[in-house]
């Protein structure tokens, strides 16, 4: 399952533009990523007000078996971390493109999106893994 209105990183994060005027985006991990991780039990996400930089580590995600780094698909300021994930990290497994979003960010530069994969490019990418 892939969402057509997102751009993607090779580390399996997605970014979706919510407001073009405000440069506001949502960030999450893909269905492929949550399936690979298995049952997610904990997330360490950047706090509101913090700064993230494109392709830099922004946090961690833990499943029962493994822990992985999270990378930000874009640079900007974090407006909100998904408050529901503290008590319900399984939302990332159940609805990775919806209720399982990770952070809301004001992008510094919308041009950064051009360097990310489109949905069809990401589809080909994961089929080659």
């Amino acid at each position, binding site marked *: 399952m892939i969402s057509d209105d997102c751009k993607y990183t090779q580390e399996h994060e997605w970014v979706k533009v919510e407001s073009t005027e405000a440069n506001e985006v949502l960030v999450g991990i893909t269905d492929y990523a949550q399936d690979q991780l*298995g*049952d997610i*039990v*904990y997330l*360490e996400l950047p706090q509101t007000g913090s700064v993230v930089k494109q392709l830099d580590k922004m946090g*961690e995600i*833990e*499943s*029962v*078996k493994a*822990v992985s780094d999270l990378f930000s698909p874009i640079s900007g300021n974090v407006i909100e971390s998904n408050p529901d994930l503290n008590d319900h*990290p399984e939302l990332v*497994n159940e609805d990775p493109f919806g209720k399982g979003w990770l952070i809301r960010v004001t992008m510094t530069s919308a041009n950064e999106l051009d360097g990310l994969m489109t949905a069809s490019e990401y589809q080909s990418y994961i089929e080659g893994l």
Partner: protein
Amino acid sequence: MTDSNKRTPLYDSHISAGARMVPFGGWDMPVQYSGIISEVESVRTKVGIFDVSHMGRVYISGPSATEFLDLMLTGSASELRIGRARYCMICNQDGGVIDDTIFYKLEEQNYLLIPNAGNRDAVVGWFNKWNDEKFGNACNISDTTLDTGLLAVQGPDAVSLIDELFTLGDGVQPSSLRVFSFGEGTWKTGTSKGKSVFMGRTGYTGEDGFEVVVDKAMLTDAWDQLVNGGAVPAGLGARDVLRLEAGLPLHGHEIDEDTTPIEAGLNRFVKQSGGFIGSEVLHNQIEQGIEKKLIGLQLMGRSAPRVGYSISLEGEEIGHVTSGSYSPTLDKSIAMGYVLERYSKIGQRLQIDIRGRMTDTEVVGLPFYSRPRRS
């Protein structure tokens, strides 16, 4: 997956049940099917089934078999009654653990041992060496691992499911076997009807249940009948969480050739009479004390310590984690690890370095989880 990995006869059954396969101990094994958390819950509340055919089936027989095993094992073979099983360790001369195993006394001079998959060759090699050097090869050591399969049926509903499918003959039900007893069961139904299996009331999950040795030819039928009867397929991921919750050691983590059963807190599986390989070292440790000790650690949050993470007290490193996981049953993170003995008391507050986050933890008694006793 590499070409050299072995596959159990149930490989295709695992794939069609949606398993994700991983290499483990030289085998391609299912790590999970529906998901680790739901599989753990099935085993804790209903019944789960594990294909553990990768574990060894090694028979020891011959006129000196009991004497031989009394030398090789930390648990007594001579004092074990026929029809009973025992958990113990196989130690090297320094008291380090080559493997841990359950062994079953089939006859006065005939035993079945279940070594871990990755240690089977080491155990058989170690036995062959001593059989040659000390016993003039009088023991017959027979590794039948590849001729049979091994299924673990575990959980509060496991015994009633086994009773539905098997009889011990003359209307005697498998549930009449006590824990750590075994018998020969006969299939009541299916294409294997009338055929017999070896069944022991043992396991590695902290739940009641059976481990069943089945001929290769019947294994798929056995799996299908047990799954159709309600047993939920569970993989190595769930098995690792379950054994950790139950405070059971895993070789290569809590025990290895550089740790002793005494350091691992396994004293009750070490016979006091001695006379086995490594016994002098172990008895010295019992009398004079140990430097490091295995402990259980409980954390407040869900972020889990992982193997190798450092354990410290006021900034000073005093040990390391050997296993850690989020525990679905307790809904908090748990770990086992070694610390300096003087910091091993229950209630001791310590810190674990979780990838740079110094996280508070507390020493707790093992096991983390005990099943509720049922009348």
